[in-house]
């Protein structure tokens, strides 16, 4: 199943946020979206996931989702969005409750998602008892439980400390390794983008337009090798040179807003 951004434009009041953004996310592909602050990355993700109606253009799906997928487009949120009154297990089960699955089938899906995210021992814990990294793992487990075709990840690591970020990045790489799931990964962290994405969509400053699409000609496993580091770093620098001037302008704009 492909996800297509088709000339998406959006504005909030008089503020133009996105301007005719188009690109395609193929089946099993990971596309990162980067750009200066306020360029509409998160807005774009909300539109792609059907949570926000664009002013013009739209998001489309091409092809059938996997037969076992209960929610083909599934979000992983920056702030985790966990129900504080539910245990880890109940949070992961929450999106399955209305699907008509039997209790046994739901439990099996939850158990599998908890196992894949190493949360099996924390099933009875409440979100307030968990660290930020563990909370995000619950968010990921909840997303995995519905067998998504494409994960829509909105800066999923930005609220975490650097060590936890590194650990979760390794988890993401492992989860996406078999190509069964695609992802749209919104981030302002260029290192995360070059480590995870097959292609990187660089947006201009507001109103966000597709400035460049940068393919990464390395498999994710190759990127983990020591001799790939210099190439990744040069890619990162290349991306930064594309964004830097506009990031400075965007920052001044925010400061004067």
């Amino acid at each position, binding site marked *: 199943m492909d996800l297509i951004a088709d000339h998406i434009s959006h504005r909030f009041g008089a503020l133009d946020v996105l301007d005719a953004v188009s690109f395609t996310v193929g089946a099993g592909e990971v596309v990162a979206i980067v750009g200066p602050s306020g360029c509409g990355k998160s807005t774009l993700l909300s539109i792609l996931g059907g949570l926000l109606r664009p002013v013009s253009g739209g998001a489309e799906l091409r092809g059938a989702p996997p037969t076992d997928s209960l929610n083909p487009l599934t979000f992983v949120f920056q702030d985790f*969005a966990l*129900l504080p*009154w539910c245990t880890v297990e109940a949070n992961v089960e929450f*999106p399955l409750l209305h699907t008509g699955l039997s209790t046994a089938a739901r439990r099996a899906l939850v158990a599998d998602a908890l196992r894949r995210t190493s949360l099996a021992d924390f099933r009875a814990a409440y979100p*307030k008892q968990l660290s930020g990294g563990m909370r995000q793992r619950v968010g990921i487990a909840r997303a995995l439980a519905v067998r998504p075709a494409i994960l829509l990840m909105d800066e999923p690591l930005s609220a975490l400390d650097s060590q936890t970020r590194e650990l979760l990045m390794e988890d993401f790489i492992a989860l996406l390794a078999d190509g069964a799931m695609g992802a749209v990964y919104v981030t302002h962290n260029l290192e995360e983008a070059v480590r995870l994405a097959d292609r990187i969509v660089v947006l201009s400053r507001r109103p966000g337009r597709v400035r460049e699409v940068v393919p990464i000609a390395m498999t994710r496993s190759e990127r983990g090798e020591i001799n790939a580091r210099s190439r990744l770093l040069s890619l990162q620098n290349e991306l930064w040179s594309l964004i830097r001037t506009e990031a400075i302008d965007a920052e001044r704009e925010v400061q004067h807003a």
Partner: protein
Amino acid sequence: MLDRAQATPPQPDANTETRPVAFRGAGFAPVTNRYAGWAALALVIALWQAAGSFGLVNPLFLPTPLAIARAIYQLGVSGALWHHLSWSVMRIGTGWILGTVAGVFVGFAIGLSSMARSVGITFISALFPIPKIALLPLLILWLGIGEQPKIATIALGVFFSTAISVYSGVDAVPRNLIRMAQSFNVPFSTIVRRVIWPGALPSILAGCRITASVALLLVVSAEMIGAEYGIGAFVLQAGNLMQTDQLLAGVVILSLFGLAVGRLINLLETRLLHWR
């Protein structure tokens, strides 16, 4: 230009005296001592008893705590206490339940529907400030002189506070949780039941605490205006007969009733909001 770190840190002069960094973080962190409050209360009651026993205070105007306790005991033994209390509890219970059910329903409607919000908030803003006890004579005209006007007064008083606390609670539910549920195609009714209701519950229970006090205030007022039985009526009769020990016994019973309701709400909060 940036300062460069020195290869070796500056060495302190061994002859210069050191002094501790002054602590500046004290205060602004009050803690409750559970015994201090009870001790203070016991002290006040002891002083009050002593003042009465030594004849410093006229017992007609301020009976001693022992006299009040004796009056409560006699009221309990004679059955009068339970008779009056049962009438008050019936009125409070019925009025509070009616007002709460209607308030929760209207509060949710205002919190979830644009149309209900536009209309409802206007009406609530206009009617909430009216002292509900002022409506009792009108309600007597409409509903007769039985129990209905008293119950309706309590229900009205409870309704507005409940509706306000419910829609404030619904508004306070983090939007990201609702968006999360929508992103999983969770139906509207399930979002209301499993996201909005538990999210709004802290505010609803805080509202219950307020409406319990409002109901108590209104039942006493209503019973003082037009009732033969009930704690309010009993307190008024005792005042008219200068039976101040009986009067204060009624007041103490009201206070204990309020405390019991507060305790019940605490229990509910502990059970229902354990996740906080």
